[in-house]
């Protein structure tokens, strides 16, 4: 029996540490720890709620803009503001662009190296690689000469003996199963994805001035002025053409590179349809309104909960059922740490009680994370692309059902195979395909509005803080790339009295609760095979399937306005 520690877990956003107990070549127990805390909600207090989004956006620079959107949604909810239809469309376009870009980047840059052995690509025959590529896709970059060029580039890197980012990889590990040709193809696509993400995200630059950290949201709408005849307007016909062209390039890349690669890789790792299931409960707040944000029934991605892997029933989501535990988190509750609190009645008194750095192991039977443990009706919930896909599938959303059924048929796998590490990978890819397609239709709708002279982009009725009530509070929800995101704001005398973000990776990466129930990461790791405890590649494969985002996850506030008390040793 051996205790393994992976810290830092790399190829993620933020600072995550996993400790695991390995018995008989498998993980028996695992503990997930977030090791960084900033306290952004505390910093937001006393500031202008109209600019909260600028601050909140900095919760994360990878899924940039998701917190901006949740923030303006929350303030608009508090002040009773309905945004113009054009603003809704621009927000959907920005969000879909974010998710498509983020998912592609995640698969190639952050996850692929758990399944792709770069060094093995040197042994590939470029001609056979070309045959393989052409057998699964009609993507034009597939000649033997092209793959030879890629191989030469890798070969020069290896010959230089300076392997750069790839120097500390797990090359030659027995858990790598791809043949050399598939590895070479994947390396080529890794490099192509780097180019794709950079060019595709120019949609954000046009609409938001820059990416990451767009600068275009407004409480009440967007700063993207529209005019069919003005070259100085952010949205004009010429730029709409550009957006459409870039969006279509994404459909090509996703359909001809990303999806075929996921299917090809899945074929070599079929045992991962049986591994990494996790807690078996899945939640989605829903997102991408196609009408008023007040009515979840019109959301492109529906709202709901799947319990105990039962796809026959979708349960409703009631935010009143959300609570958070700090039993194993570095905080204190005044009423004792065994009791869960609703976020709106919660308190945040950070009190680090872990080992003094530098340390070797955490005290996992005590407190061991900066993340709280959120629960829904006392149950842990997995959130993210798989949760969204399952909720949409079970809700009978036609686009989703058709796509999932067709994909499962290709993979010769039953729907239950989705409850797995590979299921998360597949769900993320399918969601990318759905959103890339929907993205162009939203751009077309915006273009049609522009052409018809409908240029209203901002509702300024409540822009002046003097028009606000003395107190107000509101919620903003959104389905971020990594899952269900909620922001809550309380406004008093024109400034923020309290602010809270309840974030996707907190649901997934949180620690145990008072009853000892594991969080989704912890549960998913159990039974994961570990061929070499010194090189726990398989552990990374499952953790990365969640696409961790830890900067987002550590978020806390004392919603009742108690003073923040720093731990005094």
């Amino acid at each position, binding site marked *: 029996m051996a205790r393994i520690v992976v810290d830092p877990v*790399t190829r993620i956003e933020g600072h995550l540490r996993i400790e695991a107990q390995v018995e008989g070549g498998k993980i028996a127990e695992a503990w997930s720890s977030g090791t960084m805390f900033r306290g952004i909600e505390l910093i937001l207090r006393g500031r202008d709620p109209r600019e909260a989004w600028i601050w909140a956006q900095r919760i994360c620079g990878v899924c940039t803009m998701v917190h901006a959107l949740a923030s303006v949604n929350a303030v608009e909810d508090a002040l009773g503001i309905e945004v113009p239809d054009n603003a809704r469309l621009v927000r959907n376009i920005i969000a879909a662009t974010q998710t498509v870009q983020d998912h592609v980047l995640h698969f190639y840059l952050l996850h692929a190296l758990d399944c792709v052995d770069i060094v093995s690509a040197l042994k590939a025959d470029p001609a056979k690689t070309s045959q393989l590529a052409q057998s699964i896709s009609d993507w034009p970059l597939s000649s033997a000469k092209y793959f030879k060029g890629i191989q030469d580039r890798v070969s020069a890197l290896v010959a230089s003996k300076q392997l*750069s980012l790839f120097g500390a990889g797990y090359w030659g590990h027995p858990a790598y199963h791809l043949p050399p040709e598939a590895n070479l193809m994947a390396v080529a696509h890794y490099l192509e994805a780097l180019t794709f993400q950079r060019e595709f995200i120019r949609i954000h630059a046009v609409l938001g001035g820059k990416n990451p950290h767009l600068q275009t949201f407004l409480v009440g709408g967007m700063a993207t002025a529209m005019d069919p005849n003005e070259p100085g307007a952010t949205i004009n016909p010429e730029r709409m053409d550009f957006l459409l062209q870039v969006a279509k390039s994404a459909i090509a890349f996703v359909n001809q590179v990303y999806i075929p690669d996921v299917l090809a890789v899945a074929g070599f790792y079929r045992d991962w349809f049986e591994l990494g299931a996790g807690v078996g409960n899945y939640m989605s707040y829903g997102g991408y309104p196609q009408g008023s944000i007040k009515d979840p029934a019109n959301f492109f991605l529906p709202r709901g909960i799947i319990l105990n892997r039962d796809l026959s029933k979708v349960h409703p989501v009631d935010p009143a059922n959300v609570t958070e535990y700090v039993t194993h988190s570095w905080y204190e509750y005044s009423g004792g740490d065994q009791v869960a609190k609703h976020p709106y009645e919660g308190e945040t008194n950070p009190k680090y009680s872990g080992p003094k750095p530098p340390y070797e192991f955490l005290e996992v039977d005590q407190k061991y994370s900066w993340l709280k443990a959120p629960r829904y009706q006392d149950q842990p919930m997995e959130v993210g692309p798989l949760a969204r896909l399952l909720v949409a599938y079970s809700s009978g959303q036609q686009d989703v059902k058709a796509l999932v059924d067709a994909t499962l048929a290709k993979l010769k796998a039953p729907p239950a195979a989705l409850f797995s590490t590979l299921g998360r990978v597949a769900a993320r890819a399918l969601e990318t395909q759905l959103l890339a397609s929907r993205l162009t239709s939203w751009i077309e709708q915006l273009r049609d509005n522009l052409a018809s002279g409908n240029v209203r982009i901002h509702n300024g009725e409540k822009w002046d803080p003097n028009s606000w009530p003395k107190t107000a509070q509101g919620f903003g929800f959104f389905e971020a790339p990594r899952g269900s995101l909620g922001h809550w704001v309380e406004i008093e005398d024109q400034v923020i009295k309290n602010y809270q973000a309840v974030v996707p990776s907190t649901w997934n990466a949180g620690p145990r609760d008072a009853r000892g129930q594991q969080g989704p990461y912890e549960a998913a790791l159990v039974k994961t095979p570990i061929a070499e405890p010194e090189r726990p590649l398989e552990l990374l494969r499952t953790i990365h399937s969640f696409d961790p985002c830890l900067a987002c996850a550590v978020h806390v506030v004392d919603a009742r306005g108690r003073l923040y008390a720093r731990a005094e040793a």
Partner: protein
Amino acid sequence: MAGSGGLLPRALRARGVSRREFVKFCELMVATLALPTRYVSAVEKTFSQTIRPVLVWLEFQDCAGNTESMLRTSNPTVAEFVLELLSWEYHETIMAGAGKQAEEALERVVREHKGEYIAVVEGAIPTADDGVYCTIAGKTALQIATHVCTNSAANIAVGACAWDGGLVRANPNPTGAVGLQEAVPGVQVVNLGGCPHNPANTAAVLTHYLTFHQMPALDQYNRPLFAYGNLIHDQCERRAHYDAGRFVEEWGDEGHRKGYCLYKMGCKGPEATYNCPTVRWNDGTSWPVKAGHGCIACASHRFWDTKSPFYKRLPSVPGFGVDVTADEIGWVATGAVAAAMVAQVAGNFVRDQIRPTKAGNEVTKPPESHEA
């Protein structure tokens, strides 16, 4: 021959990029740095070296926004940086190895390339409560920064948080966060402020360092003058509207649709310096003011507290209004920066000493001063 032996020229040739295009790319770097054109061949030679300098990228209290921004660089691309120009041996968000293997990679750099490697830092460093608010591999950010940044040849802080503590340090600064140069007193740091940093500037600074083994001329905040020496307002494409008194009065109004000046909507351009309007973002596609929102002065010192609230028109100082010339406003806001700039340029103020690399690659002398 210059441009033939290194990994980058080889890789470019293999991709069908001609020598002429490669030289053009070197010229672009020289232009970004505001260097005389005679330095093109020096840059070209740098990109042709066979042994690549080592870089490590540390992340502390960050959002990874500066990492993401770096992934958007196009001249050179991130792939060229990582595969052909540098040996990028540690960077949590994108490196292959994890845990023990990752930590060994970092330790090996500090041990085997002591005094030779470049350390890039992203994110603030918490100092309250013995630094427990950010640990990696069981060590605090402060322990890691001290170890890595006192053994490097050069340190570059990317983004507002690594420079001055950024948003993490904003009032009430719950974790006692500070930037690198404050956390590790005595280390030389080049600060590339901005939220995030603009990767075009970072690429230019790296190019300058690789070419001359020195950092470019810096201002009093240790920011490169080529990027932080000019007022946004003076470079702004909406400036003519300001001068003519044409302003956006409400979001989405006629003035907004016609691209009028955003000053009345809270734009901080008149008191912020940065080359944002000229370099722009994402392959030069746009920048925030062009896209319709005011500047928040994200490259200014402690901007989160000093430049907010962001929608409030700049404070009225005597004579400051729409009837005053922008030059006067600019002088009020940037007098200190401008004065420092003059002193530094005139005195050929270059912070870092020449440090030969282990490879003994030939070093070209930097320009006497940064004449444009």
